[in-house]
């Protein structure tokens, strides 16, 4: 029998987040293609949605 709670699960499709930045190991920060830290472009971070309370829900449920 399927657990009761899973009867209320929704399919949301595979997350298709493409982040326009990559991790720079020497800086220990994510950087944009032009070398600026990703955090310098706050509008972009909002648009990407990687800081939201559901962004890490598959690995860290206490978001």
């Amino acid at each position, binding site marked *: 029998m399927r*657990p009761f709670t899973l009867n209320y699960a929704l399919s*949301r499709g595979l*997350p298709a987040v493409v982040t326009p930045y990559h991790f720079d190991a020497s800086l220990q920060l*994510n950087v944009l293609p032009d070398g600026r830290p990703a955090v310098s472009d706050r509008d972009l971070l909002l648009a990407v949605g990687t800081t939201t309370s559901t962004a890490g829900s598959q690995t860290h449920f*206490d*978001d």
Partner: protein
Amino acid sequence: MTVLILTSEQDVTADMAVAVLYERGVPVMRLDPADLPGKAVLSADYAHGDFDGHLSVNGHVLSMGGLRSVWVRRPGEPAAHAEHASAWLTAETRQALYGMLYSATTRWMNHPRNAEQARYKPWQLRVAHRSGFAVPPTVITTAPRVAQQFAEVHQDVVVKSASGPPPDDPTLALPTTLIGPGADFSAVAAGPALLQRYVPKRADIRLTCVGSRLFGARKRAAPGQVDGRYGDTGYVWEATEVPDRIANSVHEYLTLSGLAYAAFDFAEDEEGLWWFLECNQGGQFGFVELETGQPIAEAVALWLAQRAMDRRAPESRR
């Protein structure tokens, strides 16, 4: 003295605090436990009644004697990226890494011992009671009859997951959902169900706590909206004052839980009362800061940058 941040490389929210630490000249080591062993290297010596340990990753080296604080943000499972990853290797690596870190004298945000307990939603409800919050009646049960009776008594009832969506299926979401009339509760016997009286709300509240600093944020709810995390209503997060009664309860909760960082979720009802929903010990704050402009990352960085004045004292709230 170095701040150690345990998180994944992709964690751009951590970047927000790292940037502040850099501005203030505080050394940082960022490590994903998933990269140990491999990209990261660890050694700890226990000899002649003394202890020292070292971590290195990406050209950065940290001695345990130079460890200022540890921020447990979004760490991967130890050894998850190892060439021969296995459950055993994860367990061995967890012993090596966290055993070494626990051997050092340092400040934690949050200490894994406290974080582990704080993740339990039923326990959160009890601590919320003791802290003086308004808590919606809740039951967690594997008894269909108990679930049925709860729904009959409270009428409008939501179901929510205690642990989040199934980790092995990234396509599934489990938003908090209203149970309609005439629900069949027989499947409660197949797995614990967490049911809670629905709170009709006019807003969601996210209250982020960093040490003793509180950052309240409020987002209007759409009519009938249940889970504020899902659905685009067009409303945005805005900074809001934290009532004194709530602040007092928050401080009590943090004292009882030993947390240095926490993100509380409340539902604000039509009378303006904040109902406790949950407390996320590792809750995201990036979206709140980006929308409200509240300096949460700076607060985190300042907390991490502090030096312990008396290392024998409890450290979670300073």
